């Protein structure tokens, strides 16, 4: 079933590919941006991406004043011709001259990405789902989901040999935008409030009319399943994951959690609970039935059903947490400012574990998918005094300095200056809600407002 549309596309792909190759070969080595645009992007590339002349707006105004992006794209919907209505852009494209260095980690690459991100978050671009940067030598696709922007592909080098293939695969991605953002909530260190974060974030997102699925992927603790009092679904998660022939859908494992409020309103989100079989199996035994990608393969079919999929991953870098991060787009890392280990473990996750996942994801997708990206850390649920703030400032500075030594890794995007790291204040209601089998954010206004802040900091635009 999956293969059919690819086959249909094969023939136009070849034609488009020929025109792309020709245009690319004839491009002067030091072509300025206008030539890259006129001779390659506007003439061949957009055509190959499937956007006709009426579906592109050059120098699109992203916000008030003079803020502009090189191109905005969107397919026409019946009478709604994008060139005329200029409304609801879908893709933004930031072009550079062929001579601009877009190799990853170069200063001009970083500034180009920054420029694209600014455009993506600009007021006129709320409907945008994708961003592209290219100078005709490199290309990178970014996904925008609410406030989250993460790389969808690595920064790919374009050559006449691969330009057809790359363009085709970028087009495939743009044409099959997954509805959901998949978030693994993970810290290698336990006791940082992962489960509480998942439950309350889910609750808050549903109050913002988002469709949410939460996955209890910590079978040893089963905290999420227990703290919401969830009963198992029709099928067990174990049986579903073990099935490699795609007979058992993950949908059959889902169990809804609903909370009725006074006045007849009810809110709900879906839960994939842990079953006993999964909880009791020893990891060595699990490995005979499950691979690190088993969960992702099952979860992929649900990514068009939800706005957010939140995975409660266990501490320690083992099969379950690896599977959770492999399945996700972004990783949210709660830490405790008064627990130096939670900060150090966050650093290890960002500079070691997540790059491992990216490497394997790229290998498994012939280099086209970037893999999971870490979000900046946040402080979870402890009151922070000025003295503590200074201590944590020093601790973070030390962690960043250490990461900057060989092999060099820049942790700064993930560890903001201490004053700017998001803090989720502590609250007795949040801690106690677990006993009541209700997310605190559904029951207490204060918890709701705290977690709304968190949702707005990271996810909601």
């Amino acid at each position, binding site marked *: 079933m999956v293969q059919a549309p690819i086959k249909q596309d094969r023939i136009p792909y070849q034609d488009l590919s020929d025109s792309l190759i020709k245009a690319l070969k004839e491009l002067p080595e030091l072509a300025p941006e206008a030539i890259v645009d006129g001779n390659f992007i506007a003439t061949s590339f957009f055509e190959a991406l499937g956007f006709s002349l009426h579906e592109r707006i050059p120098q699109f105004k992203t916000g008030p004043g003079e803020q502009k992006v090189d191109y905005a794209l969107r397919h026409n919907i019946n009478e709604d011709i994008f060139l005329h209505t200029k409304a609801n852009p879908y893709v933004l494209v930031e072009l550079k001259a062929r001579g601009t260095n877009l190799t990853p980690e170069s200063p001009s690459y970083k500034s180009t990405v920054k420029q694209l991100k600014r455009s993506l978050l600009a007021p006129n671009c709320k409907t945008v789902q994708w961003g592209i940067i290219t100078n005709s030598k490199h290309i990178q696709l970014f996904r925008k989901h609410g406030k989250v922007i993460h790389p969808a592909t690595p920064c790919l080098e374009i050559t006449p040999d691969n330009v057809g293939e790359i363009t085709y695969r970028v087009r495939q991605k743009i044409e099959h935008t997954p509805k959901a953002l998949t978030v693994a909530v993970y810290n290698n260190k336990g006791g940082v409030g992962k489960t509480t974060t998942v439950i309350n974030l889910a609750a808050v997102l549903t109050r913002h009319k988002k469709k949410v699925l939460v996955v209890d992927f910590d079978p040893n603790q089963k905290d999420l399943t227990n703290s919401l009092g969830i009963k198992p679904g029709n099928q067990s998660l174990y049986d579903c994951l073990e099935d*490699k*022939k795609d007979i058992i859908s993950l949908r059959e494992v889902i169990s809804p959690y609903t909370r009725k409020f006074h006045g007849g309103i009810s809110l709900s989100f879906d839960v994939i609970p842990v079953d006993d079989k999964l909880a009791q199996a020893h990891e060595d035994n699990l*490995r*005979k*039935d499950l*691979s*690190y*990608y088993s969960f992702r*393969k099952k979860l992929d079919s649900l990514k068009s059903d939800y706005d957010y999929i939140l995975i409660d991953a266990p501490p320690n*870098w*083992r*099969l379950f947490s*690896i599977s959770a991060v492999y399945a996700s787009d972004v990783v949210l890392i709660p830490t405790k400012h008064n627990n130096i280990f939670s900060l150090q473990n966050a650093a290890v996750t960002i500079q070691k574990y997540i790059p*491992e*996942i990216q490497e*394997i994801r790229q290998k*498994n997708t012939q280099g086209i998918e970037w893999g999971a990206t870490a979000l900046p850390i946040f402080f979870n649920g402890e009151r922070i005094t000025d003295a503590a703030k200074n201590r944590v400032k020093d601790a973070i500075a030390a962690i960043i300095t250490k990461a900057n030594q060989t092999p060099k890794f820049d942790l700064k995007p993930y560890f903001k200056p201490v004053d700017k790291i998001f803090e989720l204040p502590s609250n007795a209601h949040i801690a106690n809600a677990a006993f009541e089998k209700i997310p605190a954010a559904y029951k207490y206004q204060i918890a709701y407002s705290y977690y709304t802040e968190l949702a707005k900091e990271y996810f909601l635009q």
Partner: protein
Amino acid sequence: MSNLSDVGNLMYLDLEIIEPGNITNNSEYLINATAKELSNTDGRNWIPLIVKEVAEYRYQIIGNSFIYAVAEAAGLEKVWCIIADDSEETAKVTKILAGEEIPKINLSTASRDEIKSALEYLIEQPDTVLKGVKIPVATNRIDEAPRRYWQDLKPITKLKCGITAGKKVKALEKVFYLTPESMPDDIKDPKFLNTLTTTELRKIAKKRNLSGYSKFSKSKLVNLLSQ
């Protein structure tokens, strides 16, 4: 065992997601009779199939393909497999370890004993074409020949050891391969020169800037070049 790879793991996989690859021919009798034996037990293949992962949930057999054939005949839905890495070398050595392929030795550098045991192996085969070849004679002559320069096994047919051109020398390809050194131009050993063709000898003469050899017979050329 890395968590990000199943290589080295014993996994219980559906037969359906395993591609047979190049299956070695096994007799129907052996397959069906073994399947029956297996069905009489709890159906567990204690000797695993050896597979490599070609994509997520897609595997290909690289060794013990007999087990696959038996599992199929026994109607098993799942088989126990060991996941091997996907390198060519692993596939090759696995087939050899499983007894599905015959290992080859490098005749350019092999020791006398290695040559002897390889020849013995070939002659012991029930369908051998090398009947009548005297092992001690053949071993000695091959061992002493300048085999490190051989481009192929043809020179063996000139050693007068009973291994003649055609299927006999062809049989030797089952156990021998060569990594020939390039021949030095100043080689003078008549024994070696004799194994070369007249054309090859003329080429050497030309490289040495000799003259007047164009109408020489082979033995005269050898004489000339061995001085």
